């Protein structure tokens, strides 16, 4: 598997191939914790937030919300404690970048969290890691112990007035806990049910206190933003999509992997055919899900010869979105009916059961898919599925319902032939 940068100098992946990259000594030899020093010695919390705003960094977990703006929503005058929570519940099908960031560069995450905690005057932070990533929790715990011993985590960090403790926390197998309010419910020891917004976590999050929840990739971008300055970081990408982005590439490509690309990378066809070294066994490209299972599926002819620019705006123009950057490539052998059935089963399993449209809707959709797969498809089933999606999308409590609907809606619209062949009346 490939791990590296294309079209730019590696930033977040800079130490991926350095021997013993997990250790604090190696991290410091490569400029580690220098950003934290700079922050503590020369910057106010407002300065940090302003740099992050200038960087045009957008949340890398999937929603793409501007990070600096999210931080600025935390009320400064609140007497309550403030929390920084790292969302390492990476569960979006097709996404595996956070895993390698934590596995190979745990101190980068710690440094990013410390800078975020400084900017938000937070004294206690948690890394919420999905339960299956137990080995990463062990790696993070070892890195935290090293950082504590070196005076980077704990009381009066580097003899400043800033104190911050960071702890790891384990999830236990629930996709919904990647949704930030469900994550907070889970971190409080409850079922992972999402909460009503507003109030947003920035105002009332963990233990009803102001909280910022950021993805691993978002937080690990912060040290470089501080080191190089917000504007130079933004200029690596485009005006509204600053910096670089990690793409987790899987499926039918010759070279799957984690690719760091500048935002606005031109273009998707070149990325698949040259950077990822094309489709195995001389097969033809059929479809791409570019941003994790929840985004619209794209047809090959929306990509080939279309100069699809790989950033937030470019992908929306092309008819999909960046999401989490989980880039799933499918060749001509894939039946999009089958692939969509697979994802719908995922959403049905992961629906938390809290709201009716999502719980019942995803269950019903799976029943329809199964009936069709068993040979009892009816021509009107495509419309039935679209109607079901319509009753979930925008009508469920959290975005999981939308995420369950979009793959089906886009698949039926863009690959009608794959559905039609299952829906034809049986031959007599």
């Amino acid at each position, binding site marked *: 598997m490939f791990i590296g940068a294309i079209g730019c100098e590696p930033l977040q992946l800079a130490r991926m191939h350095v021997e013993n990259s997990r250790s604090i000594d190696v991290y410091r030899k490569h400029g580690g914790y220098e950003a934290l020093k700079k922050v503590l010695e020369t910057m106010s919390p407002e300065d940090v937030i302003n740099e992050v705003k200038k960087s045009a960094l957008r949340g890398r977990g999937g929603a793409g919300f501007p990070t600096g703006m999210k931080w600025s929503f935390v009320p400064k005058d609140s007497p309550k404690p403030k929390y920084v929570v790292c969302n390492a519940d990476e*569960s979006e099908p097709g996404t595996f970048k956070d895993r390698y960031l934590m596995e190979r560069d745990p101190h980068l995450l710690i440094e990013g969290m410390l800078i975020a905690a400084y900017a938000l005057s937070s004294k*206690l932070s948690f890394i919420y890691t999905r339960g*299956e990533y137990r080995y990463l929790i062990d790696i993070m715990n070892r890195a935290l112990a090293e950082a504590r011993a070196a005076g980077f985590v704990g009381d009066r960090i580097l003899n400043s007035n800033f104190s911050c403790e960071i702890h790891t926390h384990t999830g236990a*197998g629930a996709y919904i806990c990647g949704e930030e309010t469900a994550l907070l419910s889970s971190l409080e020891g409850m079922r*992972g049910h999402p909460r009503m917004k507003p109030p947003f976590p920035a105002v009332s999050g963990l233990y009803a206190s102001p909280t910022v929840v950021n993805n691993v990739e978002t937080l690990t971008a912060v040290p470089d933003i501080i080191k190089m300055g917000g504007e130079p970081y933004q200029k690596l990408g485009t005006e509204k999509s600053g910096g670089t982005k990690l793409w987790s590439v899987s*499926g039918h490509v010759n070279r799957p992997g984690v690719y760091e690309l500048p935002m606005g990378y031109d273009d998707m066809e070149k990325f698949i055919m040259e950077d990822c070294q094309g489709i195995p066994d001389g097969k033809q490209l059929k479809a791409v899900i570019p941003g994790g299972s929840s985004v619209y599926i794209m047809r090959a002819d929306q990509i080939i010869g279309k100069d699809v620019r790989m950033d937030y705006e470019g992908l929306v123009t092309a008819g999909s979105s960046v999401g989490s950057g989980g880039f*799933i490539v499918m060749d001509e052998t894939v039946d999009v009916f089958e692939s969509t059935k*697979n994802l719908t089963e995922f959403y049905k*399993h992961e629906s938390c059961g809290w709201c009716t449209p999502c719980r019942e809707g995803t269950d019903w959709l799976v029943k329809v898919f199964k009936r069709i797969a068993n040979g009892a498809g009816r021509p009107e089933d495509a419309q039935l599925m679209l109607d079901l999606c319509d009753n979930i999308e925008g009508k469920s409590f959290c975005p999981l319902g939308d995420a369950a609907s979009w793959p089906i809606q886009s698949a039926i619209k863009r690959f009608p032939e794959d559905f039609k062949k299952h829906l034809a009346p049986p031959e007599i």
Partner: protein
Amino acid sequence: MSSQLTQIQPLSQPVDIGDEVATFSPEVEEEIDAHLAKYPVRRSAILPLMFIVQRERGYLDPPGVAYLANRLGLRYTDIWEVATFYSMINTSPVGKYHIQVCRTLSCKIRGAQKVTEHCSHKLGIKPGETTADGRFTLSEVECLGSCGTAPMFQINFDYHEELTPEKIDQILSSLP
């Protein structure tokens, strides 16, 4: 987490907690204390503690539920409500080696079904079943974040990636 209205089924199995409360060695108690010390609110430690109980007792059994309720100052139902939400919390016994084959899209198109079938054939059990000797449980699970190294399975907490039939045979036969 599955639907509760369309499939008529009890919300969860009624469990007689009984009078027994689990006990642990001083080392384990210390480990539990360390988790409790991390959080401003005790209840937050519920998942880490469930994993410890599960590790020590094989699964979250009724005495384990009673222990957690006492330790966290919660009711049995509070513990049970959380336990039944999370797929990694086992409320019934599982095999010594829990083989969890990823079935989601990226693994599916790289041959996840063949991995499941190979394990199934080799162990003589279907997904969801445990071998008679209690050694293996086979499950199909959702995306484990190994999409670039598909197909894969996780045995207990260990990742095994880029699986082939030969590699599966080798992994299974090397387990102690």
